[in-house]
């Protein structure tokens, strides 16, 4: 019975992974298709669509802009998200905590059309009242991206702070360091890997956003997802396949590299712990 169950489970794992990866693989394969019709195989070409992509000014300009927006928003969101995650873990009681935790969690699931519309209406009301932000563009898109990516980063940081060993911070405090110094000298370096992965997560989410950007954007700052979306609406385009392949390649290499690195660190930590235990046992 147990064997039969595990057979089913293994088969299920394989089938679902096939489901998750088949579309991604097909996009990559067809980026090497020497035919203008994306789904009709016309022989192999290594670089036809990549050269076409590199010569598409519209896509390149939009990509540069999107990378810029993603870098700025993710940096700001990482600062705010780290503080928010810290507050959620370290300050269990303060006035408005429930509201705060609700506002941190809600953007994660809030339908994007609602977030996008509400932020645009805010920007317009603010412009009418205080004259800032003037019009829609880089500033408004960045503020919108910071607001919804900071939630993702806060969740990452919250789980990191939850598992953090307090003894080092306590030791520093006992030795007379002020809370602010303890945070910057002790806490921050320890949680740095989580901050880096939080930043990367924020970066990719910002880079990928279409709906909130469309609401909060103005003319002249068209982002990469907006260009891709308008092209996809007109039909399949092999250049999009080439672009997708580049994105998938970068992400895969990054994630695989990060996983290997984390596993190595984990092993190192286990080794250190064992050595410490042995040292204690000897003494």
């Amino acid at each position, binding site marked *: 019975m147990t064997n039969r169950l595990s057979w089913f489970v293994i088969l299920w794992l394989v089938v679902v992974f096939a489901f998750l990866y088949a579309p991604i693989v097909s996009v990559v394969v067809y980026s090497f298709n020497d035919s203008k019709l994306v789904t009709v195989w016309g022989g192999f070409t290594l670089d036809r669509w990549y050269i076409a992509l590199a010569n598409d000014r519209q896509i390149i300009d939009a990509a540069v802009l999107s990378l810029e927006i993603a870098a700025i928003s993710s940096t700001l969101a990482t600062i705010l998200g780290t503080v928010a995650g810290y507050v959620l873990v370290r300050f269990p009681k303060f006035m408005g905590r429930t509201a705060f935790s609700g506002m941190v969690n809600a953007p994660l699931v809030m339908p994007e059309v609602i977030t996008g519309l*509400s932020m645009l209406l805010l920007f317009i009301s603010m412009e009418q009242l205080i004259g800032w932000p003037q019009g829609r563009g880089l500033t408004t898109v960045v503020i919108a991206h910071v607001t919804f990516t900071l939630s993702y980063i806060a969740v990452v940081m919250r789980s990191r702070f939850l598992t953090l060993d307090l003894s080092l911070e306590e030791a520093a405090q006992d030795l007379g360091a*002020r809370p602010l110094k303890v945070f910057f000298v002790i806490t921050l370096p320890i949680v740095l890997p989580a901050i880096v992965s939080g930043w990367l997560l924020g970066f990719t989410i910002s880079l990928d956003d279409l709906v909130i950007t469309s609401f909060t954007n103005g003319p002249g700052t068209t982002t990469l997802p907006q260009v891709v979306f308008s092209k996809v609406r007109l039909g399949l385009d092999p250049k999009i396949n080439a672009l997708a392949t580049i994105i998938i390649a970068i992400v895969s290499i990054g994630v695989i590299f990060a996983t290997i690195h984390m596993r190595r660190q984990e092993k190192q930590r286990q080794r250190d712990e064992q050595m410490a235990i042995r040292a204690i046992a000897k003494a």
Partner: protein
Amino acid sequence: MAATESARSVSRLPASSWIHNLLQSLGIRGRTLVIAIPFLWLLLYFFLPFLIVLKVSVAFITIAQPPYTHYNEAGHLVFNIGDSYGRLVSDALYIKAYLNSMVVAAISTIICLVIGYPFAYGMARCSHSVRNILLMLVILPFWTSFLIRVYAWIGLLKNNGLINDVLIWIGLIDSPIGMMNTNFAVYLGIVYSYLPFMILPLYANLEKMDMSLIEAATDLGCKPLKAFFVITVPLSFPGIVAGSMLVFIPAVGEYVIPELLGGPSSLMIGRVLWSEFFSNRDWPTASAVAIAILLALVVPLMIYQKYQDKELEKES
């Protein structure tokens, strides 16, 4: 006493010291400031906008920039509920789209659960090193562009797409099945895009489960399948709720998937909001639609929030 005092002042960073002095002279405690920074940001940019949506939803349409006004033709300030909300209740199109979105989101959530549960269960039962690799493989598509993953399905589902080509080639069908621009494609797109959101909380829950409970049950003569439904499933209930909310809530307002994969008949409320706003430039109605969606999502959002708080409490 003097010695410790001087040691303290030495240990201070110069930067933190003047910030500290400034705050002290203003009478603000550091803790308050730390809380205030993200709190005020979220209040201003996340909470306040909803109040403005509520405000605009009772405005009149006008030809101006921005295209709404709170004054009627006589110049009086009025709450205009009739135009926006009145339209929502009287026009069958809105009600149909609204209900259809709920149905599509609910069915997609159930499909995600049915696919995701055995999958997360299988992952959690693998050895530690295999588990990490599988986890990475689940997260990987999540990091690649959502828009591109939806785009990929167009290439597979089209009449001359990969799936039809393969089915014709193996002789299962003679002419292509129309899968693009159907409700089927919308379900497929939503399930595909949101499946990782279902799997991850389920996995996190099942991974922590105490296996000795199941061993005890089987030792006492309980059949494995029964043990699964009597012990594993009820214990994983928080994971089921979290995963379901992570799929259901955003799926209700989904715009990109029905727009790219669905046809004109795949009416979803997120699409209605979009076209009211961008095509008709009817901002009050778009705002009223947003409020209507939020009303339906209040309870799911509260369930989700309660789960998040419980997890935090449990772990700390």
